[in-house]
């Protein structure tokens, strides 16, 4: 592996206010430049193998596991591909085809066991997530931070558990994170003056990003922001060169997506780049009724167990509908009168925006709740336990249930805390920080529409990478404003946790208590 640009980054990527000379002698920054010589591949591979082993054991413990909610919808689409040779939409939304296609690859010919092979495949693919997490930590900080990041990633139960769930996050991250890594390498190569290598890296980043968009459309609007970063960092090379370099990522992404987009134009007569889900998300997120799918499925289960409904626990200030829209049937309805599935998305988005504009107070207070849902230390691992989805009478639902649910929640909370500290006090300035923070900021902005713990998953490896630096090196910044900003952000995180605390604890207690 080539060196990132020391000439540029050694100065520019240190924190704005670094340690004093005597402190610096013992500071992680000393080892930073040394560790840039070569990624610590021995450690990376060992920890990646360890993380994969953890996930394989978790898979083994989780089997047999029945399909749930969206997993069934993916299987439906896979059957459609196998039996009719056609990829259908789901009436309310059109998903990108990649994951259903992959599922069909494993179940094609009619083998339910293929789902378990797909889970095993995801376990293997997760090694790419672990490797990229460590590479990011190494690139941002040092070998020590990479090792810490590897350790955190390996035992982070929410990420680990998703490898045995048939949601698309693991496959998506296995493509998305390498795309981001290649982008960052492209920026570094450009800083070194190695334009050809930079171009190749940016091309690879675009191709991987396009592939990731076949699995999950989430980063579709992120691509322009990332290419702006490339363009901005190349501004000193002249406008033409900056534009040339900045165009590679979006162009490559578009080319990969084009076959699917052309197909969509043929089928729907509309341009659909990844999927068509925005209108349905507007229905969920910009509507009177509060909806969070970490909690909604628990409602029926709580009724069965004679427990108080989740809705009674919500802090109404952040979830109640606007005063002029209270009562049954409030909010707006899906545009089901529009038969065209793509046109319906636009109509629903328009209804949602109109509703938000006419209820600005409601909009603002419920967005706080969305962020609260985004950072809640829950995960589908906890939800699955709370719902009794894991087979009863097994080690996973027996002796390991409480420790693993507890670890899952604690590691989620810890990673968020470390991220806040690392992002204000440790992470050095430069391309690495810009790319990582842009992605995290984008995910946080997207969560103001629809939020749940699953939507945090795509950025959790990046949160780990940032947080690992703080754990490995402690605070590097000494300026009071930075400490104050970090403190304010921690208080903000605490407030967000407090807002969702009743529901979070209700879900946690169901998961910890086990199913009768």
């Amino acid at each position, binding site marked *: 592996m080539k060196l990132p640009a020391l000439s540029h980054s050694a100065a520019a990527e240190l924190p704005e206010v670094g340690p004093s000379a005597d402190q610096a002698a013992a500071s992680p920054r000393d080892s930073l430049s040394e560790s840039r010589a070569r990624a610590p591949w021995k450690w990376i591979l060992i920890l990646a193998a360890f993380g994969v082993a953890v996930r394989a054991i978790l898979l083994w413990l989780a089997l047999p596991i*029945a*399909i*749930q*909610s969206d997993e*069934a*919808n993916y*299987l*439906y689409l896979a*059957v*459609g591909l*196998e*039996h*009719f*040779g*056609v990829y*259908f*939409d*789901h*009436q*309310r*939304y059109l998903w990108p085809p990649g994951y259903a296609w992959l599922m069909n690859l494993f*179940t094609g*010919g*009619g*083998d*339910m066991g293929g*789902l378990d092979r797909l889970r095993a495949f995801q376990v293997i693919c997760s090694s790419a997530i672990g490797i990229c997490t460590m590479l990011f930590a190494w690139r941002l900080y040092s070998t020590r931070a990479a090792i810490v990041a590897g350790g955190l990633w390996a035992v982070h139960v929410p990420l680990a558990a998703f490898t045995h769930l048939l949601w698309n996050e693991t496959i998506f991250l296995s493509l998305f994170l390498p795309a981001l890594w290649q982008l960052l390498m492209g920026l570094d190569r450009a800083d070194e003056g190695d*334009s050809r290598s930079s*171009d*190749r890296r940016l*091309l690879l980043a675009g191709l991987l990003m396009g592939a990731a968009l076949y699995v999950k459309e989430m980063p579709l609007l992120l691509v322009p922001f990332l290419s702006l970063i490339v363009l901005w960092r190349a501004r000193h090379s002249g406008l033409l*060169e900056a534009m*040339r370099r900045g*165009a*590679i990522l979006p*162009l*490559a992404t*578009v*080319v990969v997506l*084009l*076959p699917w987009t*052309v*197909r969509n*134009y*043929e*089928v*729907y*007569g509309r341009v659909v780049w990844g999927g068509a889900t925005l209108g349905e998300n507007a229905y969920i997120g910009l509507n009177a009724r509060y909806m969070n799918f970490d909690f909604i499925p628990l409602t029926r289960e709580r009724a069965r167990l004679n427990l108080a409904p989740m809705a009674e626990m919500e802090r109404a200030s952040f979830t109640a509908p606007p005063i002029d829209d209270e009562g049954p049937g409030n909010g707006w309805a899906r545009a*089901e009168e529009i*038969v*065209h*599935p793509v*046109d319906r998305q636009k109509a629903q988005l328009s209804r949602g925006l109109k509703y938000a504009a006419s209820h600005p107070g409601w909009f603002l207070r419920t967005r706080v709740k969305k962020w609260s849902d985004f950072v809640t230390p829950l995960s589908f691992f906890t939800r699955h336990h709370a719902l009794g989805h894991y087979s009863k009478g097994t080690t996973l639902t027996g002796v390991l249930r409480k420790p693993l649910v507890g670890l899952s929640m604690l590691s989620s909370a810890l990673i968020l805390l470390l991220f806040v500290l690392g992002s204000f006090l440790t992470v050095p300035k430069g391309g690495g920080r810009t790319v990582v923070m842009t992605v995290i900021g984008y995910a946080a902005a997207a969560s103001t529409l629809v939020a749940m713990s699953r939507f945090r998953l795509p950025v959790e490896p990046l949160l780990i990478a940032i947080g690992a630096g703080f754990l490995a090196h402690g605070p590097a910044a000494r300026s009071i404003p930075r400490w104050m900003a970090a403190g304010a952000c921690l208080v903000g995180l605490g407030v967000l946790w407090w807002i969702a605390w009743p529901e979070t604890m209700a879900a946690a207690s169901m998961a910890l208590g086990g199913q009768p």
Partner: protein
Amino acid sequence: MRAWSIHIALLVAAILFVAKGVATHTSTEEAWETAFDESAAPDDRIWAIHLASNRATERSDRIGRDLALSLLGSRDLRLREVALLIDVCRHAFNPLEAPTNTSPPIQDRYVYGPLPRGEWTPHRLRSLILYRRKVGGLPVGGINRMTSTEGDWILRTLRGDDLPPSDEIDRYLRTYGHVANTPR
């Protein structure tokens, strides 16, 4: 020029993809014609139905009623099942007096009609699952998601394996409890 070689290659690839799309384009008129052509090859017909039903910007009784009846009367079992999928069901014909949350009546009649010799066949079981386990709610015939057991059954039917005894299937469907009007 060499600095732009990647851009040129990507643009050429993009042009080729678009050109392929243009070259293989099926007009809406052709799609409608093939969709209703009972002599067309099943795969061609399925694709044409996919295009015609998804391009339509108004709910079409021709698709929701005429095509549904035509497909359900087809000898090809796969074509019959197409009538139960989202493409056709989103155009479902409902009598004016029917409540808004009513399942498509033509498809309902077929899926819940008497089973041949009172036994589940792969086609009939697949029809029930494809019809009832779609997203979109009652207006398109969907209630609840597919379970693992149903997933296993439908994949078995694709593989050509034997199904469980019909009594067992009935018992499961009754226990699962979300399949109104179970046949038989």
